[in-house]
């Protein structure tokens, strides 16, 4: 006897845990009198059991450590990026203002070079901008493409573009009172998002850029 597809459909529905009581009754009634379907049903159940067996499918012992050592630890930066993404206009304006006030226009084309907005007393060592002990930087500081280490003090805000604030405890950027020990103002990060903001701002900035170059041919 050739059984209707309906019965086989009910078998699958049973395995998907979606049978109604009525369907359950139809299926078991049929199975009681049809050996072919019994076999079919048994094979389907066995397939599910074998394929769902998880007893030997486990990760290596180092799995968690491996993941944890590969995730970026500094979430502060990520929330900064999130903020920028949600405030594109403000971001563009902020970066533009930043460029205007910090006077680092001329170095903008040299992509990978470390630049710093104030030079007095500040030292650049292998890609790291260092404010040595006993040096007090008067005013805001902008560092691009380099990390910043402050042994002395900065009397103003700090903005890091494509760089990190190097601290004794590298797991997180200094905040609050801890930050006050180095910097009197705010610590801002502008990282990869810079390119994105740049893309949106470039037409606008581009004009000023060429004006600026004409005025101060460095």
């Amino acid at each position: 006897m050739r059984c209707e597809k309906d019965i086989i459909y009910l078998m699958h529905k049973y395995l998907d845990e979606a049978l109604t009581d009525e369907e359950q009754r139809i299926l078991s009634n049929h199975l009681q009198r049809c050996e072919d379907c019994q076999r079919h049903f048994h094979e389907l159940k066995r397939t599910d059991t074998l394929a769902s067996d998880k007893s030997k499918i486990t990760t290596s012992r180092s799995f968690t450590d491996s993941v944890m050592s590969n995730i970026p630890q500094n979430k502060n930066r990520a929330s900064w990026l999130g903020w920028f993404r949600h405030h594109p206009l403000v971001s563009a304006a902020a970066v533009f203002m930043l460029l205007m006030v910090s006077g680092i226009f001329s170095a903008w084309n040299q992509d990978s070079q470390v630049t710093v907005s104030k030079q007095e007393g500040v030292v650049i060592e292998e890609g790291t901008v260092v404010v040595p002990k006993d040096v007090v930087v008067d005013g805001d500081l902008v560092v691009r493409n380099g990390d910043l280490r402050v042994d002395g003090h900065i009397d103003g805000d700090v903005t890091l573009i494509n760089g990190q604030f190097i601290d004794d405890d590298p797991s997180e950027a200094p905040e609050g009172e801890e930050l006050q020990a180095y910097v009197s103002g705010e610590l801002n990060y502008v990282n990869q998002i810079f390119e994105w903001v740049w893309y949106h701002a470039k037409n606008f900035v581009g004009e000023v850029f060429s004006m600026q170059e004409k005025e101060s041919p460095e």
Partner: protein
Amino acid sequence: METIIKERIKEVKKGNAQAFEDIVSFYQNKVYFICFRMIGNKQEAEDLAQEAFIRAYTNLDSFDERRKFSTWLYRIATNLTIDRIRKKKPDYYLDAEIRGTDGLDMYDQLAMDEALPEEQVENLELRGYIQTEITALPPKYRSVIVLRFLEELSLQEISEVLDMPVGTVKTRIHRGREILRTKLRHV
């Protein structure tokens, strides 16, 4: 459990990266199961599963906390694995046998560790065979049925993970199960 996970997610979002460790511990074997069943290779599955967690971490801001975290995570894992399968060279299917052997390696090793009785060794061969047959399924059936074999998601949730209608999910599970049944009925 979902409540504890949600708390951990909040902590991670606040900046406590270490809170992510509990999330990894809890879901690692589930994510690994999805990757391994789909790709059929131990090492690749481990890489994909790790990548899935790293992506989940970096994109956590985009996770809507009103939704179920597991389905979101499984979606990342499944998409990564589907991508990997697609990028494989055309000789992938010729490779299937070697891939199956790869699955066996793990069991061989276990057999050596525990000096299993003969009956269970047969069982180990069966495991390798099952995996080979699952990996031989066309990818469109494979992702759906593997999520079903995880035995944790409803059909509705599977449809959310894969972004396909529930009807399609059902049809593909039934079709995939029938294909596997014919392959496994004599072993």
